[in-house]
C-alpha cells in the first residue's frame, strides 16, 4: 500500500499507560482524508494519541498506520509528511516571524532560498507580514498561534495535527484561526484536530470522534451526533429559570405557534426557549459529563418567548 491510497489513519487495539494509569484503552479508529475532530475533556487521552500518531511516543500495544506508514518503523519518512501544532505556540520567542519560518523550513531540508520564499508566502497568506521582523515573543497570543501553524505548513505537509489549537485564545483570535484552518482544509490538507471546544469541532470538522476514558465512544458528523439525543424542543422554564418540561416540535412557524399557545394556556407565567441539541448534549448523553462546563450554551439558539 502506498502512502497516497491509504486511509489517513488506521488504528487497532491501541493501548498506552503511564505507570498504573491507562490513558488509551484498546482504541480503534479509521479516518479517511479530510478534517476530523477528536473531542474529549481533559485527560481523555487526546494529546497522548496525537503524540503517538506524530512519532513522539511509542504505543504499548496495538497497530498504528498514518498515511500508510508506521510511526515507529517509518518514522523519518512519516515525519516529512506531517506537522504538529501543540497546545502552546511552538515558536522561538527570540527569533522574528521570518526567522522562525526559515529555520523550520531548513530543518525540513529545504534550501535556504526556498525556505525564505515559502516563509514570505505564508506570512502574507496568514496576514502576518507585521510579524516578519518582529520577535515572536512580542506578538499577541493569536498572532503567535497563527505563526505556529504557518511554521508547520512550510514543508507542505499532507496531514496536520492541531492539538487544541485555540486553547487560551480570545473569541476573535479563535475565529481568525478557524478561518485559516478552514482555508487549509479547502486546499486539500488533511487535519486531525483535538479540542475541548464543542463549537470548534462543529465548525471545522467533517467528522467528529468522541474520546472518553481512552476509547472512541461515538463518531459521525455533528448532525448525526446531535440526532442521538433527539430533535428540537421548546424548553419551558419557570420564573426562576428552572426547566419544567421539553415539548417536541417540528420547528415550523405553524407548529411553534400552536405549541406555544397550548403551553401558554396550560402554564401561564412561564418562559420558553427553542432548544436544538448541541454537541454538549451529545457529550453529556454519551459520557455522563460535560466537555466544558463553561460552554454549555454556546451553540444554543434560543428563542425567548414570554408566554401567558
Amino acid at each position, binding site marked *: 500500500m502506498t502512502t497516497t491510497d491509504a486511509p489517513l489513519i488506521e488504528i487497532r487495539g491501541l493501548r498506552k499507560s503511564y505507570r498504573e494509569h491507562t490513558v488509551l484503552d484498546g482504541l480503534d479508529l479509521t479516518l479517511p482524508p479530510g478534517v476530523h475532530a477528536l473531542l474529549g475533556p481533559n485527560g481523555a487521552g487526546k494529546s497522548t494519541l496525537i503524540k503517538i500518531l506524530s512519532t513522539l511516543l511509542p504505543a504499548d500495544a496495538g497497530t498504528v498506520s498514518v498515511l500508510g506508514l508506521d510511526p515507529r518503523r517509518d518514522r523519518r519518512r512519516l515525519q516529512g509528511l506531517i506537522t504538529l501544532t501543540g497546545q502552546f505556540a511552538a515558536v522561538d520567542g527570540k527569533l522574528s516571524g521570518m526567522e522562525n519560518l526559515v529555520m523550520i523550513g531548513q530543518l525540513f*531540508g529545504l534550501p535556504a532560498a526556498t525556505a525564505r520564499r515559502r516563509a514570505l508566502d505564508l506570512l502574507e497568506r496568514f496576514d502576518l507580514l507585521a510579524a516578519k521582523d518582529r520577535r515572536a515573543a512580542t506578538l499577541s497570543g493569536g498572532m503567535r498561534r497563527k505563526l505556529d501553524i504557518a511554521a508547520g505548513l512550510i514543508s507542505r505537509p499532507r496531514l496536520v495535527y492541531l492539538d487544541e489549537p485555540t486553547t487560551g485564545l480570545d473569541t476573535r483570535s479563535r475565529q481568525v484561526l478557524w478561518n485559516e484552518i478552514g482555508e487549509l482544509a479547502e486546499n486539500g490538507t488533511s487535519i486531525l484536530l483535538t479540542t475541548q471546544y464543542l463549537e470548534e469541532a462543529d465548525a471545522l470538522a467533517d467528522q467528529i470522534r468522541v474520546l472518553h476514558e481512552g476509547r472512541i465512544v461515538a463518531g459521525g458528523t455533528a448532525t448525526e451526533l446531535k440526532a442521538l439525543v433527539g430533535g428540537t424542543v421548546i424548553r419551558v422554564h419557570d420564573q426562576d429559570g428552572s426547566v419544567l418540561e421539553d415539548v417536541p416540535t417540528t420547528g415550523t412557524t405553524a407548529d411553534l405557534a400552536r405549541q406555544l399557545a397550548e403551553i401558554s394556556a396550560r402554564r401561564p407565567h412561564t418562559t420558553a426557549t427553542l432548544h436544538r441539541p448541541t454537541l454538549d448534549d451529545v457529550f453529556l448523553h454519551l459520557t455522563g459529563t460535560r466537555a466544558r462546563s463553561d460552554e454549555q450554551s454556546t451553540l444554543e439558539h434560543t428563542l425567548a418567548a414570554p408566554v401567558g
Partner: protein
Amino acid sequence: MTLIETAGDPGTAPHHPSPDHRPAPAGAGALTGLRVLSWRSLRHSFRDPESVLMAVLLPVMMMLIFVFVLGGAVTTDGGAPSRAEYLSYVLPAIALTAAGFGASFTAVVVSNDMTTGLIDRLRTMPFPAVTLLLGHTVASMVRNLLATVVVVLVALAVGFRTEASAMQLLGSLGLIALWILVITVVFATLGMLAGSAEAASGYGFILLFLPYLSSGFAPVESMPSWLQAFAAHQPMTPLIDASRALLTGSAPGQDAVVAVLWCAGFLVLAVGVAAYVFPRRTSR
C-alpha cells in the same frame, strides 16, 4: 457505546481533494541541523546582551579584584607577594570560572527548550533532533571562548607577561576549551533533567564553586588538611595546574593527562545521560 459508523469502516471521503502527490521533504542532515541550530543559539546569546555582558564582565571584575585586592598580600611560592606573579597564578582559574558562569546559561536555554512546545515540534521533524543540544554546545563554546579571550586581553593590559611558546599557549587554551566543552555538556544535560530553567541553573551552581576549592586561587598546601584531600583530588586542580604550567612556559607533567582523563570521564557520563534522556523527553 454508540457508534454511528461501523468500526473499521474507512468512511466516506468528504468534499476535500484526495491526498496529493506532493513530494515529502527529506529533512535536514546532521550538519545542516547543527549549522541552523547553532545559528539559532548564537542569535539567542547575542540578543540577550545582559547575559553576554555578565559572562565577560564578571570574570574580568573577579580577576581585577583578586589581583589588586589580594595580589599584594598573597604569596604562592613562599616568597614576597607580587601582583604580577599572582596574576599569572590565578589566570587559568579565572578563565575556568568564567567558563562555568557562561555555560550555566546553557542549562537555562536547554531547559526552556524542553519545557515549551518547540521540542515536540522539532522531534516530529525529519532531522536528528539531538543537533538542538549540539547547537547550544557550539554557541556556548563561542560565547565562552570570547569571554576567555577578553579575560586574557585584560590580563595583558594589567601586566601579564609570559615566555611560553605558541604551542604551550595553544595547549593551555586547549585545556580551557576542553573544560568549556565538558561543563557545557554537563549543564545542557542538567537543563534536560531539571523541571524548570531556575532549577537547572541551581543544580549547576555547585560546579561553579569547584575552582575555589582547588589550586586555582591559593596553593592546596595552604588549606586545612581535611580540605586538602578534596582539593588535591578534584578535577579542577590538575586542569588548572596543567593550564598554568603551559601558560607560564613550563612543562605540565602528569597533570595534563589527569586533567584530560577527568574531562573525558565527565563527557562520557554527561553524553551518556543526555543520549538516554533526550529521546524520551517531550515537553513537560
